[in-house]
């Protein structure tokens, strides 16, 4: 297989069996992919941090409710499993 990444283009205006073409990416498209990868990684990190923050908040809330005298089951019933 070629070193250059490829794309699959499906032209639905053509009859079946003649629709698919495999085309090498242009340099501009390759550059766009690199930008996309950087953006996606940044978004992944943001989402993972948000997940961790949400879980930490939940646990903190549970701990405080339990410290007030609720059982763990009662606290979970309030904040959700």
């Amino acid at each position, binding site marked *: *297989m070629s070193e250059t*990444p*490829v*794309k*699959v*283009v*499906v*032209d*639905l*205006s*053509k009859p*079946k069996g003649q*629709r*698919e073409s*495999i085309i090498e*990416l242009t340099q501009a*498209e390759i550059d766009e*992919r*690199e930008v*996309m*990868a950087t*953006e*996606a*990684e940044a*978004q*992944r990190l*943001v*989402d993972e941090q*948000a*997940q961790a923050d*949400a*879980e930490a908040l*939940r646990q903190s809330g549970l701990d405080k409710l339990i410290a007030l005298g609720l059982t763990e089951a009662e606290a979970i019933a309030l904040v959700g499993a």
Partner: protein
Amino acid sequence: MAMTLIQTVTVGSGGAASIEFTGIPQDRKDLVVLYSMRRSSGGARLQFNDDTGNIYDVLYFFGSGSSVITNSFTTGYIGLNDGSNSTSTTANTFASGLVYIANYTSSADKTISSEVVTENNATQAYANLAANRYNSSSAITKVKWTLSANEFSSISLYSIS
């Protein structure tokens, strides 16, 4: 209401950077995309008509099994990263996803719902549910699916009429 398969594309080992459906017939009501996907790294995104400007509104819920977050923004694509399988998941497992594109020939803005869930033979798995809007008066004639790293399994495009 009838759901009709327009085309299935299967990409084997070696993968493809993107899959583009062009010349989409304009005589149907809605479009549905069902896909099985795995990416080596980076992102997965969906764009229409080669539009890369900030005309896609995205609101998504992302669940990890222990918590759920939500986020919203306007951007140049519909992202399908979260929930997609990557190298951190079991080898040869693929995320399953669905995208529903309503009134794709309309001259009004189009609404798109999307969902994807991870397949993984381990604890870690994600689900991503999103409501999106494509702010364009143009009918959708092209759907482009891009991965920033080459891996894919299959994508099927259906029409609803």
